[in-house]
């Protein structure tokens, strides 16, 4: 399977947007080569602003640009964008419902050797609690492209997070993508695995293994954490009677938290969460970090087996 970093999809979409819309501006905080905002710098220098190492100012400036009718895409590492500039995102971007797009790169533990300070594992949680915010976590480069185009077409603040590593391209240009609409990637009747980001591919592999054990696991790509597709999630949960949520993020507050909040108000379906369990990461290569921090294929398999015992 072809492997491409999701950030390439982000960069490709930004190029496309700068081509079609003179009001699109791309801001970066001295990591443009990493986020692929550098592609804009090369091809559309008038659309690119390097803000220097100043995340708070970057978000505030983007807010001003949005007030003046521009469509700023703000890119840097997800951990610094969501954390360092949270107050600016809350009190200026979201409070005023401004059309600012936030691209959180190098998200998750799979950023690898840079270690814990650079691994965004709480970003989805602290972005999704903000009123007016849309939060998207695509699963591969093609979906990242589509998601970036989709948030361009969606008025208001949006946070899109994507990883650093080359990851398998599991969707095609023809795969449906609608913001706010979860997508069943694999049918199944015993348990539903809701996943996003890198954990969609892991969950597909887990589903294969579960099949060998005689367990039919449905895999649903919940790329949009907010607004959450309540209809699809509730119907999948009801139909299969057991739920696993898998994400490259803390178990607390992310997609798992969002789905538990929803399910708890509607039914008693048992849930098992796969994610980082209240700890920081460390340096290492992406695969060994995923395996050692509970994000391996086997972790998803185990979660499915365990949740079925509570059915």
């Amino acid at each position, binding site marked *: 399977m072809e492997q491409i970093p999701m950030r390439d999809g982000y960069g490709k979409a930004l190029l496309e947007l700068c081509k079609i819309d*003179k*009001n699109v*501006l791309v801001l970066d905080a001295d990591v443009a080569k990493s986020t692929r905002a550098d592609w804009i710098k090369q091809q559309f220098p*008038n659309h690119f*602003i390097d*803000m*220097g190492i*100043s995340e*708070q*100012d970057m*978000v*505030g*400036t*983007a*807010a*001003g*640009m*949005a*007030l*003046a*009718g*521009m469509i*700023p895409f703000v890119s840097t590492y997800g951990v610094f964008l969501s954390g360092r500039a949270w*107050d*600016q995102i809350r*009190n*200026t971007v979201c*409070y*005023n*419902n401004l059309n600012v797009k936030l691209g959180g790169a190098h998200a998750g533990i799979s950023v690898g050797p840079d270690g814990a300070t650079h691994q965004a594992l709480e970003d989805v949680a602290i972005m999704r609690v903000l009123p007016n915010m849309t939060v998207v976590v695509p699963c591969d480069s093609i979906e990242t492209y589509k998601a970036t185009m989709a948030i361009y077409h969606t008025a208001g603040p949006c946070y899109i997070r994507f990883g650093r590593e080359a990851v398998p391209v599991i969707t095609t240009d023809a795969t449906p993508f609608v913001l706010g609409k979860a997508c069943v990637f694999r049918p199944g009747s015993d348990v539903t695995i809701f996943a996003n980001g890198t954990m969609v591919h892991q969950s597909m592999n887990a589903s294969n293994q579960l099949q060998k054990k005689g367990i039919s696991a449905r895999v649903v790509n919940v790329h949009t954490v907010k607004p959450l597709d309540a209809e699809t999630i509730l119907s999948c949960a009801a139909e299969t009677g057991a739920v696993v949520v898998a994400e490259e993020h803390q178990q607390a507050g992310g997609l798992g938290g969002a789905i538990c909040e929803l399910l708890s108000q509607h039914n008693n379906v048992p849930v098992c969460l796969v994610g980082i369990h209240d700890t920081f990461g460390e340096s290492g290569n992406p695969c060994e970090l995923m395996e050692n921090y509970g994000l391996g294929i086997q972790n998803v398999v185990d979660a499915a087996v365990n949740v079925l015992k509570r059915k």
Partner: protein
Amino acid sequence: MSGLKDLQQLCNTVRKDIVRMIYTAGSGHPGGSLSSVEIMVSLYFTDIFRCFPENPDNPTRDRFILSKGHAAPLQYSILARKGYFPVKELKSLRTFGSPLQGHPNMKKLSCLDCSAGSLGQGLSIANGIAFSFKHTHCTPRVYCLMGDGEQQEGQVWEAALFAAQNKLDNVCAIIDCNGIQLDGSVKDIKNMEPLDEKWHSFGWNVIKVNGHDITALHEAYKQSEAHLGTPTVILAATTKGKGISYMENQAKWHGTAPNAEQYAAAMAELSLEVQ
């Protein structure tokens, strides 16, 4: 420019609005609202600031970003006196359902160019607007009022660098240098002086002015308009709580509402001042 006497009279009216609003609300920030009165009157009620109260969304208008959001009562009074909404609405400050939130909210009061409340953010916002105007070849100017205590926020200096780097000469920042923040004097808490040297070294055109002298402020705004190539900051030396003798230079009046007796004394003093 209206006559100086008229503008001084207007400042007095605005001060009464501020004291009355905060007294009626039972909470609010008189000190830093009163200190910025001349700064705002000389901006809005002369030939400096282009705005269209009858058509507030006119895209050619200049923009004003209040960064020291706690001076909301001042901003509301100015906008009401300018004709954006009825003066009688001022009494709804800080009450449930009012467009006049404790700190300004553009979603509830649509004539605002931005909301405010979290300190240190306004200049970045002003820069973003100003950069976009340059990008799209628009001519309006962008004004941003900050406090001197607010200068302690690191984001202010990130924004200062950005504006200079990008030659945003369509930005005019004004700092209300009243010397006092909530907990005490700026000098004692985290000294920001010499502010003029700091801003100059950050690449800005610095103008120092008496922040209660309307003529001098007007001249400073004119100079900022004429100055090309770098952004301008006007350092306006002011008195916190200006106009109410018992409030002047007192940190406790940063964010305290007067009681009935104090209110009467303040209004009496302001009425006396007119004559």
